[in-house]
């Protein structure tokens, strides 16, 4: 977690959910794509991180 910028996951999710419209699973795919594409450095070593989505939604959940 960055001291000033916050956590990578929350910041990415907020950006995607705020600036895009659509079904939440599509938006979460965008979150995963962005996080997977990013190269993080921790203690001089490259790191990768991605969220995991488990869904039991029965219908489309639109955020707008």
């Amino acid at each position, binding site marked *: *977690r*960055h*001291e*000033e*910028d*916050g*956590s990578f*996951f*929350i*910041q990415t*999710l*907020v950006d995607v*959910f*705020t600036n895009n419209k659509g079904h*939440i699973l599509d938006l979460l795919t965008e979150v*995963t794509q962005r*996080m*997977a594409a990013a*190269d993080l450095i*921790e203690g001089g*070593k*490259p*790191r*990768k*991180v*991605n969220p*995991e989505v*488990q869904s*039991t*939604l029965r*219908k*489309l*959940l*639109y*955020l*707008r």
Partner: protein
Amino acid sequence: MSSEESEQSTDLDAYDMSHALLALTLCNTKDRAGSETDIKALEQMYKALGFQSTVKRNLTAKGFQEELEKFRDDMEKMEDPVSCCFVVLMAHGEEGILLGVDGKTIMLEELFSMLTNKNSLALRGKPKVFIVQACRGEQKDPGEVVRPAESGGNVFLSSEQPPKLPTYTDILHVFATVEGYIAY
């Protein structure tokens, strides 16, 4: 309501989002630099999405349970129906558990179960979104190098760092039943 919203809210394949949209953020900020930045960002997101947001900070393990219970009980008393709720949990954690500021642990499943169709009448059949910002272990993923063919045919010069993927992407988890239940 715009014609687009009207069209979507009457769509049988979509959840009705025309009633109250509620959000609860339970966050331990102690020893978690950057937490306030996350809370601020979430508040702006909720405002943009039309959610009523409540934030509670620095909770004991029992405090997580009590605040979620209060959130659920308040929903039951609301005159207007609830369409959807978001619950954001932010704390130090390990697989399946969160750590309270008292050093005690609370199982995530205990929190999730409080809003099931069985335990929350107000949210029965309504979408409940849990967002968990917490560690699930101590492993660190260095990633795996993407082969040129998988990167769209790009050829990497020897001086360039080849692109990497996280180890666990492109997997679809499809279980016959939820954890703890029999599968038929």
